[in-house]
């Protein structure tokens, strides 16, 4: 076995490179200068292998404030030192073991984080939502409104985002308000609602925190009877009544905190976080949509409209839905929803919600001046 060899030594005080002879004594490694004098004596138990290229063993002393270094490039000598010193482990086994512990605990942390994200965050948001005062909710809605407007307002032909203020739109506005009035009276929510038609071509409607409901122009175009439109507005009033917007904000904040702040960003981690949030939030959304449907159907039953009309327009709008990607869609599969809607529809007395002329006027609510 090798008992001595050549190496380079740096004393940590200056950058001068000393060529030295290393002697492997029984308890310590002895470093001799070229003239044979003893420069340093490092006990094997205090040796530390430091980061170095593969061809070299770089040694220092554990927890030493002085940056003295011994560089061994003689492979036989390096192997001999590795054998003699317990802390020196060139195979990296000791370090790997420590690292596996980190990985194992991280996986455990990840699991509990995911469980919290899936089960606890929506639960907390649901419990917290009723505690949010209405004034704060309205402010929240105003903040979201500013963002929604920047995102959605296409400034179509330089016109206002809301429909119904133009001279030729007034009649449509009156019909719309009549329809909304019937629904709102039946809903009897503890706070006032604002339902507006906006210039936007998608067949959709959205509810913001604080009772602001936007019905898109595209939805009015797509609806063939007042009952269909009323069904969708009733559904949105369900979101408002259940304060789903506020709950979504709370959920989103909770998830952002869990994923964003604790995990930071690395290797495009930000995008992963957003993806995880989208999947989780849309999976929460399924029950929420079903509840809003039920609310809308109850309203229609109450005011004598056709509750099944909501199902009809849903089927018309979502015509082709790919199965297999259901979880990524905002709304649960239409077929299931329509079945649930029809099951809840009562067969009580019906009367038209709007006159024929009124509905015709409503269709022109976004005619501009």
């Amino acid at each position: 076995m090798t008992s001595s060899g050549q190496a380079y030594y740096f004393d940590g005080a200056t950058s001068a490179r000393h060529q030295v002879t290393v002697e492997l004594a029984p308890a310590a490694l002895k470093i001799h200068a070229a003239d044979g004098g003893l420069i340093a004596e490092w006990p094997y138990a205090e040796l530390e292998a430091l980061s170095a290229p593969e061809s070299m063993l770089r040694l220092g002393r554990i927890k030493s404030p002085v940056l003295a270094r011994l560089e061994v490039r003689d492979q036989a000598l390096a192997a001999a030192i590795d054998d003699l010193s317990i802390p020196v482990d060139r195979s990296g086994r000791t370090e790997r073991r420590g690292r596996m512990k980190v990985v194992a605990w991280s996986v455990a942390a990840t699991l509990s984080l995911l469980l919290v994200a899936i089960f606890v965050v929506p639960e907390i948001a649901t419990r917290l939502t009723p505690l949010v005062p209405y004034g704060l909710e309205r402010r929240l809605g105003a903040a979201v409104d500013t963002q929604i407007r920047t995102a959605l307002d296409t400034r179509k032909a330089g016109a206002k985002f809301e429909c119904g203020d133009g001279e030729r739109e007034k009649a449509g506005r009156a019909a719309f308000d009549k329809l909304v009035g019937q629904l709102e009276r039946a809903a009897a929510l503890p706070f006032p609602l604002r339902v507006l038609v906006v210039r936007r071509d998608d067949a959709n409607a959205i509810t913001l925190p604080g009772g602001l409901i936007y019905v898109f122009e595209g939805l009015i175009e797509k609806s063939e009877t007042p009952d269909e439109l009323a069904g969708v507005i009733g559904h949105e009033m369900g979101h408002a009544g259940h304060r789903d917007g506020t709950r979504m904000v709370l959920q989103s904040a909770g998830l952002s905190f869990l994923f964003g702040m604790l995990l930071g960003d690395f290797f495009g981690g930000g995008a992963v976080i957003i993806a995880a949030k989208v999947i989780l939030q849309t999976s929460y959304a399924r029950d929420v949509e079903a509840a809003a449907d039920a609310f809308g159907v109850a309203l229609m039953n109450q005011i004598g409209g056709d509750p099944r009309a909501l199902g009809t327009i849903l089927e018309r709008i979502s015509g082709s839905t790919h199965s297999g990607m259901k979880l990524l869609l905002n709304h649960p599969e239409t077929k299931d929803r329509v079945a649930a809607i029809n099951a809840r529809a009562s067969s009580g007395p019906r009367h038209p919600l709007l006159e024929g002329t009124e509905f015709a006027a409503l269709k022109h609510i976004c005619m501009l001046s």
Partner: protein
Amino acid sequence: MTTLDAIVPATHPRVTPFPPPPGPVQFLGYERAYWRLLIRGAVLLAVTLGIYRFWLTTDMRRFLWSNTEVLGETLEYTGTARELLIGFLIACAILVPIYALLFLIALNLGTIGQLASVIGFAALTVLGQYAVYRARRYRLTRTIYRGVRFLQTGSAWRYAIYATFWSAIVLISLGLLYPLMQSRLERFKMRNTYLGNLPGRFEGTAGGLFLRGILLWIIVIGPLIAALIGVIATFDVKAIEDLARGGGEAAIRRMTTNNPAFTAALGLGFGAMSWSFLAAVMLYPVFQAIVLRWWLNGIRFGDVVLSSRLRTGQVYGTYLRFIGWSFVFSTMASIAVAICYLLIKLLTDKPGLNSDGAEIVAAVIGFVAYLAGALGYSTIYQVKVRLGLWRVTAESVDLKNTAALEHVSSVGAPSSPVGEGLADALNVGGF
């Protein structure tokens, strides 16, 4: 056999046990080892939701540092993952209240709320620069060369304000004053950088970088400015007044159809924008090579003078290799996704199967595919671009008056990792 061959002895007597390397700086690491390190790291990052990044970052630095050999001696990185983790936790303790406060203020709308978001953004920018400086200090004090530690002095707050100020100037000047910012900031950094008691300084001048880069600036930004001037010159002020008064489509018609020069200028503007974007992407490696060369040529440590032989073609090479590898990876990934899609279809089309279960399986497969894709591209980027650039840049360096490196005295102690943590949490900082 020539006579010369016969004279040369069979076994060459070695004067020193370790022959000196050909250039002053050499990179010894094998790409294969770096691939292994990064792929293993990517898998562990995925299963630990990113917590492993502190260990991976440390491994990457250890690899890059310890394989960079300067005058026969390799650098040593002494930082640990534990330090990075602690730094990150401290940064969280500082940032969480700030974020919460900003969120609360943003809720409070009106002028105060909007002002607060602007102030918040500015504050986070300054804090980001602060973190950049502190993180540099952390990395320098963990870098050992020949048993001597690098050091960085100077106030990080001063640097942060200085850097923010200069960034604003560069933004306002449309990038024209970038060389001035670079030279000022680099001087600040290098003036405060030491190897032991050997003081660093920076001698690159703004003028030098300006002359090397002005052509690039003209090619990329020039057309944009010309188009902007064109739009302003042909602008019909009266039409915009009409528009503001609610003229609607009529005013827009007046602005466009009745003013062909304006329409042409607007069209040119869009053309210029696409040109600028394309030119910026295509010429980025040239820019990077110019800045790297200028930077290395300006660095001094005492009497030691650095210079760089980095060729623009080498920088292009690293990016081209990245694109090539990404292409191969994309092809393989598309095939894998197609197979997964078919499998999902087989699963979900089966009648009587619990559709919720199939859906969750599909979502999980999609998520895993996305994660694998993101990690794959970034791994290729780390190997091909980051490591590639590190290697060509390091090996391009020439050193003069290296005798000064032989007797540097050791000074100073390692600094706290808070800067690194902040940089990590704020998403700034590099190696």
